[in-house]
């Protein structure tokens, strides 16, 4: 029964989506005329390659540096809240803080009186590769930290560090030369997911990325709307797949290149670094991260009420509620749509992950499998484009929910995996010896025991569904606008004030869900249900 369920889940949520996307890739050319237009792709492709490589490397380096200080468990809650802020809302908020006339420059002026006009050479113009890179970095580091902390729990790395320090190595060198080589292979899947996300995310570069020419994903997105005879969008999809493959190989090279380097360093380096300065990167990261999320929300809130507000003033000169009052009738239905879509998708994705993991638990198969995570390693753009060509654009309802579940499922699997496969059979036997059948013991003991993990998975899936832009837009074909599709379209239209209202609402939905489900410290948080 459980086995059949598990197989069904993988068929419906992993195999089917793949097969459904394939035909469009090969037959969309309608025979003639697929001809690459090199001048169209050259700049976007090279821009994207540079962006992806540098963002991934930076995420990896800073993530590992921070992980040294956060370790295996503390601050888990902060990380998951950071993760749950939808990236569109996050991008709009960061924009309000960092743009040339944003809160940051205003704050600098208020404190130092040095910037009487918006600085011309400000390194973070509203739309640029750099701004895009910063937002991606801030979104992806928490994801890597989440994975790193679950993986660290399976390594006795604290003992290694102690042992190494007793042999005279500094804590920092011991971390990079001893723990990181063991940790790195375990981060491979997460890094691959980060590469793919950076390569193919559409909504963030639409808001913050360079305009002419854009990055690869936005060019594919724009070409898709042109319906030109030579079908450049399909060419773009092939570019995405090609880059994915190349970047995977590079990542593999990076990961297998690290151990030899480390061996070299172990033999030739001093045991402690001669420089005394310490980049205590991780120490304040959680505080900074939590503070940044709050600042983003505060900026969104302030901007949504702001009236006239001329440059150097830190605060708006006037406040007005009219934007809220006039927009509310439009926003409310959007919130409802997003809400029910996310509730259903999250429930289904959580149940699906439970089915797969329960099968793994019963067969004592504890490792994390790549198959349930597969959708994280394929550019979303490629899949959604394929589905849309197959099913048409007007398919709301079941098709849309299915697409959301497909993208939520890898996350519920990730979040539930550790707790689920490690729960001890002992509890079930104990309950059975007290007179409960296996089924009763499962529902009344095992499931409540894992309540916290289930709630976390549901909340994460909920926020993943809220954040879905491309599937909602392309599969529903505009017939089912959600808070996210509207927020993107308003923000990419340049109305940052109106956008901040929508972005705020988009960020609030998952936040409410997290507070409802995980706000109270549940009893079993303190308890380890494994052996």
């Amino acid at each position, binding site marked *: 029964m459980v086995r059949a369920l598990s197989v069904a889940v993988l068929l419906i949520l992993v195999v089917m989506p793949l097969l459904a996307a394939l035909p469009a890739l090969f037959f969309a050319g309608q025979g003639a005329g697929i001809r690459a237009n090199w001048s169209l792709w050259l700049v976007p492709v090279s821009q994207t390659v540079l962006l992806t490589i540098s963002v991934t490397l930076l995420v990896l380096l800073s993530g590992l540096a921070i992980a040294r200080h956060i370790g295996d468990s503390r601050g888990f809650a902060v990380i998951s809240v950071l993760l749950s802020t939808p990236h569109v809302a996050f991008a709009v908020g960061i924009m309000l803080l960092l743009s040339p006339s944003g809160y940051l420059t205003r704050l600098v002026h208020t404190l130092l009186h040095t910037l009487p006009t918006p600085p011309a050479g400000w390194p973070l113009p509203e739309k640029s590769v750099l701004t895009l890179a910063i937002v991606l970095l801030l979104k992806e580091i928490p994801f890597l930290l989440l994975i790193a902390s679950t993986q660290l729990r399976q390594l006795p790395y604290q003992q290694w560090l102690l042992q190494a320090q007793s042999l005279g190595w500094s804590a920092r060198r011991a971390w990079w030369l001893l723990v990181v080589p063991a940790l790195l292979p375990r981060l491979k899947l997460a890094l691959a997911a980060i590469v793919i996300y950076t390569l193919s995310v559409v909504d963030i570069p639409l808001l913050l990325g360079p305009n002419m020419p854009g990055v690869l994903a936005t060019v594919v997105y724009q070409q898709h709307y042109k319906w030109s005879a030579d079908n450049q969008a399909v060419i773009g999809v092939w570019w995405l797949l090609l880059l994915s493959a190349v970047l995977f190989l590079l990542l593999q090279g990076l990961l297998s290149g690290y151990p030899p380097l480390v061996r070299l360093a172990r033999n030739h380096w001093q045991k402690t670094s001669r420089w005394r300065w310490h980049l205590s990167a991780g120490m304040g990261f959680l505080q900074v991260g939590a503070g940044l999320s709050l600042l983003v929300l505060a900026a969104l809130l302030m901007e949504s009420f702001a009236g006239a507000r001329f440059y150097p003033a830190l605060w708006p000169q006037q406040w007005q509620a009219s934007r809220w009052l006039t927009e509310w009738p439009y926003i409310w239905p959007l919130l409802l749509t997003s809400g029910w879509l996310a509730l259903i998708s999250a429930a289904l994705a959580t149940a699906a992950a439970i089915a797969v993991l329960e099968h793994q638990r019963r067969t004592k198969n504890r490792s994390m499998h790549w198959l349930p995570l597969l959708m994280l390693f394929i550019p979303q753009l490629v899949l959604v484009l394929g589905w849309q060509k197959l099913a048409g654009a007007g398919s709301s309802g079941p098709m849309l929910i299915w697409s959301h579940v497909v993208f939520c499922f890898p996350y519920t699997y990730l979040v539930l995996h550790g707790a689920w496969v490690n729960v001890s059979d002992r509890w079930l*036997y*104990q309950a*059975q*010896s007290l*007179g409960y059948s296996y089924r009763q*013991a499962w529902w009344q003991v095992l499931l409540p025991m894992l309540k916290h993990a289930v709630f976390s998975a549901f909340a994460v899936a909920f926020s993943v569904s809220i954040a879905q832009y491309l599937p909602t837009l392309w599969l529903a074909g505009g017939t089912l606008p959600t808070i996210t599709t509207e927020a993107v379209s308003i923000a990419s239209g340049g109305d940052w004030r109106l956008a901040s209202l929508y972005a705020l609402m988009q960020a609030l939905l998952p936040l409410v869900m997290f507070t409802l489900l995980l706000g109270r410290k549940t*009893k079993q948080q303190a308890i380890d*249900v494994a052996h």
Partner: protein
Amino acid sequence: MLRIKSLRISQHQQTSQQTLLLALPQLTINGGEIATLIGPSGSGKTTLLRWVLGEPLVGFEQQGELWLNDQRIDHYPIHQRKIGLLYQKGDLFPHLSVKENLLFALPRKYNKQQKQQRSEQALATIELTSKRNAMPHQLSGGEQSRIALIRSLLAEPEALLLDEPFSALDTGLRASIRQWTFAQIKQRNIPALLVTHDEFDHGDGPIINLGNQHA
């Protein structure tokens, strides 16, 4: 009365051979009696216990009969065997309070009021009424052991398995908890099977040394 007849448990090897793990021609434990299984680790003590409880033994070949009060039960699922279980640690469900743990164990035939009464009574006999609403991790080792035992007994088992129940306790506490546990079993007049690697922990019934078999 718990009776094991001609039990043989063998282990599958990779080369499709089977090695005999343990053989037990005959064991009878009368009500109120505590039989003790001793032997070095790897001698199959825990496997025997798991077989009696009814856990699925993956990778083992097993034959033999298990009788409880003149009923053959070796084909029954765990929950129908009426055999209680006491592990050495982590007995209490960590996500339930003391009271909830006890209520969970009580047979379904009692109504709500009777359940309340019985669990309160049980707590009173071990003088832990004040810990009613505590969570397991807030209790000391000795308190956990005592509550775990009365929880097993509240389910009204007809036999009891004890898997090194005292080894997590410190020496001072150990003797008194052991005495108290054995007294409870005597009072209920149910057969008990104790697994231990400490000879001082043994009960008054037959002692089976599994270590001799491979000699």
